[in-house]
């Protein structure tokens, strides 16, 4: 007898529907799984048999064939255990075929018949949203992130069978708010004393989605500043929230801390491998840190210490907002729309304040900065110096502006960008800049002078213009852009090349 059970598997960060077909017929007792299962999927045979037997069901001593359709999509993970078990029960007539109507199943089985959570619950439930989805009880909070879905959380195979047969009601897990994940208080900008340039740069970065590079000695507060950036970004909308939840769920990390509506913040260490940063892996292609920071902030501390190869791999995702990871068996695309924040020391000793306090040789210094230079550096519209704040400003009495009031200006600036048809000013192309960011005479002269001095490249001039437009948006100025806007935009773009030359 044949049974077909709807389920799904994760490819990259997206769910793909899988029809689990179970055929039970006479013949020598045998249990085979076909249809591109991976190792953990093939192991399902042993788990399913043990789980059925320990839950008091009968194992059919017949020929059992399981086909995972469509045959072309590689199936990964143990989430297909439950649909296979349900399929065997229906095909061996221990459950009625009606129980499969409009119902999909996702879950891993324990040998004792318990149903365990699997990674990727959010994308799995998302793709099955037209059905009532039976999910592991322990994954019910994660599954709820998929939005409006009919969920049937269940903890064990025997209670599932009881509910399906109508012997008892579906177990209720109430509407408890989930494991009381302590929502960390996001760090507030009001805690930052002094550092007016860095504050302005954060505000501009948040408003225009401009990538930011901070250059400064250890202890200047670069990490502290970067952590305050997610709080300035507009909160995630429902669509974005689902995207973020899918990536985190597919990576097996559950739901990002902070309740999921605040933009994620990821700060991988510079020892991170290429695969952990951009995603990949041979058996199960997992999203990397860049994708985990999707719709949020990717912070690379000590950027000069990252291997050049790893930094180079970031260029494509920064340009396209997505990463395509190709492996022999599959090619998947991960989302990667990040706001990149880099931090670096000015030189190996970190002591270069001005051009005098550094103990490094010229050669060491230029080599250090050269590691950052090139195409990746080009992506940073904002490059600022962050120095240790002077003592008087650290102890200064007046409270600084809070995250809340800065975020309000950022939101207003984003609205103006939306009127131009882009999410943020970073996305404005040449044509958009010409249309929305005209320069007045004085501003034009400043740019022309900087171009003539060689302080700006042609590309740099365009980026400065985009930043100047964001600066204007933040204070509500209408175009044309004036000298003030351009002067600030230039001041927020320190030329690293001249830091090398400074010692030549």
């Amino acid at each position, binding site marked *: 007898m044949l049974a077909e059970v709807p389920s799904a598997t994760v490819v990259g960060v997206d769910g793909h529907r899988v029809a689990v077909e179970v055929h039970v017929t006479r013949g020598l007792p045998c249990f085979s799984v076909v249809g591109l299962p991976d190792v953990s999927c093939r192991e399902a045979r042993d788990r399913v048999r043990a789980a059925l037997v320990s839950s008091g069901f009968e194992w059919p001593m017949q020929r059992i064939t399981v086909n995972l359709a469509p045959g072309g999509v590689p199936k990964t993970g143990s989430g297909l255990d439950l649909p296979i078990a349900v399929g065997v029960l229906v095909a061996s007539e221990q459950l009625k075929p009606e129980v499969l109507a409009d119902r999909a199943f996702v879950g891993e089985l324990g040998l004792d018949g318990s149903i365990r959570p699997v990674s990727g619950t959010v994308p799995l439930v998302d793709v099955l949203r037209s059905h009532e989805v039976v999910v592991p009880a322990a994954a019910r909070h994660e599954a709820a992130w998929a939005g409006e879905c009919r969920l049937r959380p269940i903890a064990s195979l025997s209670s599932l069978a009881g509910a399906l047969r109508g012997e008892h009601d579906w177990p209720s897990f109430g509407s408890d708010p989930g494991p009381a994940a302590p929502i960390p208080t996001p760090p507030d900008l009001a805690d930052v004393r*002094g*550092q*007016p*340039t*860095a504050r*302005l740069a954060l505000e501009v970065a948040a408003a225009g989605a401009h990538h930011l590079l901070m*250059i400064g000695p250890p202890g200047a507060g670069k990490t502290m500043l970067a952590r305050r950036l997610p709080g300035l970004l507009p909160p995630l909308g429902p669509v974005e929230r689902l995207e973020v939840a899918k990536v985190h769920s597919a990576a097996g990390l559950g739901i990002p801390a902070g309740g999921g509506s605040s933009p994620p913040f990821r700060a991988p260490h510079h020892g991170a491998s290429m695969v952990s940063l951009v995603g990949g892996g041979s058996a199960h292609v997992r999203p990397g840190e860049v994708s985990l920071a999707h719709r949020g902030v990717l912070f690379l501390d000590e950027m000069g210490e990252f291997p050049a190869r790893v930094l180079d791999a970031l260029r494509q995702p920064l340009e396209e907002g997505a990463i395509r990871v190709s492996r022999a068996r599959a090619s998947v695309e991960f989302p990667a729309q990040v706001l990149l924040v880099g931090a670096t020391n000015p030189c190996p000793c970190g002591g270069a304040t*001005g*051009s*005098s*306090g*550094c103990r490094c*040789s*010229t*050669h060491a210094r230029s080599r250090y900065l050269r590691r950052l230079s090139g195409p990746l550096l080009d992506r940073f519209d904002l490059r*600022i*110096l962050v*120095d240790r*704040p*002077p003592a*008087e*400003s650290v102890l200064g009495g007046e409270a600084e502006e809070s995250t809340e009031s800065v975020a309000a200006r950022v939101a207003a600036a984003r609205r103006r960008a939306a009127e131009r048809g882009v999410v943020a000013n970073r996305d404005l192309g040449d044509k958009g800049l010409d249309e929305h960011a005209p320069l007045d005479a004085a501003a034009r002269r*400043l740019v022309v*002078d900087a171009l003539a001095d060689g302080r700006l490249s042609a590309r740099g001039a365009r980026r400065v213009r985009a930043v100047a437009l964001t*600066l204007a948006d933040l*204070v509500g100025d209408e175009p044309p852009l004036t*000298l*003030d806007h351009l*002067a*600030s935009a*230039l*001041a927020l773009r*320190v*030329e*690293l090349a*001249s*830091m090398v030359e*400074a*010692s*030549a």
Partner: protein
Amino acid sequence: MSADGRCGVDDPPEVAWLLCLASLPRMGPRRLDGLVAGRDPASVWSDIVAGARRVDAEVIRRCGAEWTAVRTGWVTAAQGVDPASVWEAHRGRAVLDRTGAGFPARLVDDPEPPAFLVVEGTLPEHEPVVSIVGTRRCTGYGRDVARSLGRDLAEAGVVVASGLALGIDAAAHTGALEVDGAPPLGVVATGLDLVYPARNRHLWEQVAARGALMSEHPLGTAPTRWRFPARNRILAGMADAVVVVESHAGGGSMHTVASALDRDVPVLTIPGPVTSPASAGTNRLLVDGAVPVRDIDDVLTVLGLSGRRRSASMAADPARVEVPEAGLVVLGALDATPTTVDTVALRTGRPLRALHAELVELERRGLAAQEAGWWRVSPLGQLAAAVESPS
């Protein structure tokens, strides 16, 4: 060899053997001098090829425990050298023998003269020479000063000599090349065919084209640590005065200073901020009695040339400078040592975005200078601030 010292087609002259000897490993000017003292370089060379058995006892004594290793190195290297091809490689370059024509008169009487010089370009003969030396890790202030000093001295007909290193050396020659004045002189510590540091190639070529380059090493000599202090003695020996622009305490410029003092060459220095490590060495020299330099006139006075030129000082005429009203406060908050915009904002209390525009305006008028986000007042700005200040 012809009278002008240029290599000819005839048999290798005496200086060719010196070139061969100097190309041996661990051969410094002092050892070379000891080897050929009172002897014919050709016979010294054939002795070394044969196993270095008749080497001057004084040389062996000074080598001490190293002698065995030094000798083995010499003999092995010498056996692989073909003197004719060494000579051939120098064809077309001026190789000046200490006893021959064209050798700089100032170095003939030097306590440690080079045995020979390889020269490109034309050496200065009668012009006064000032060596400008200083740290490679200089500040913007040091670079500005070295550059204007180099420019003004060249304009006043004084040959600017330097080592073509990064930092102060490069700045001094850059300045000297900006005007159509006295030809620059570069004294380098490698063979003339090896540009070191490579980043200064353009400057190196400019100096060779408009003035002269000299080296006491045969072509092909790579940069080695000890050659730089040794080179500095030639910089001191060639000079009528040595100006140290910026030097860290114990920096390499102190070798030049010591050599200058040995040769009774006056040492002048540029005073720097007491807080700047790059000026620690020069300020120390001031305490020890070096002559402070405020502008080129101080240098010309030491050279006995004070009448030659009334300089307009290192800055321009303050009377011509206009400071915008709003910029005056900002100008007052800038130092000669670079500061960040944040510090300026704190000092002036001005909002950051207004400050950006004011700084740009000051920079445009040449009153302030910016380098990689670090702002400082320019020499012109300092004058302007002094003139405009209400006190």
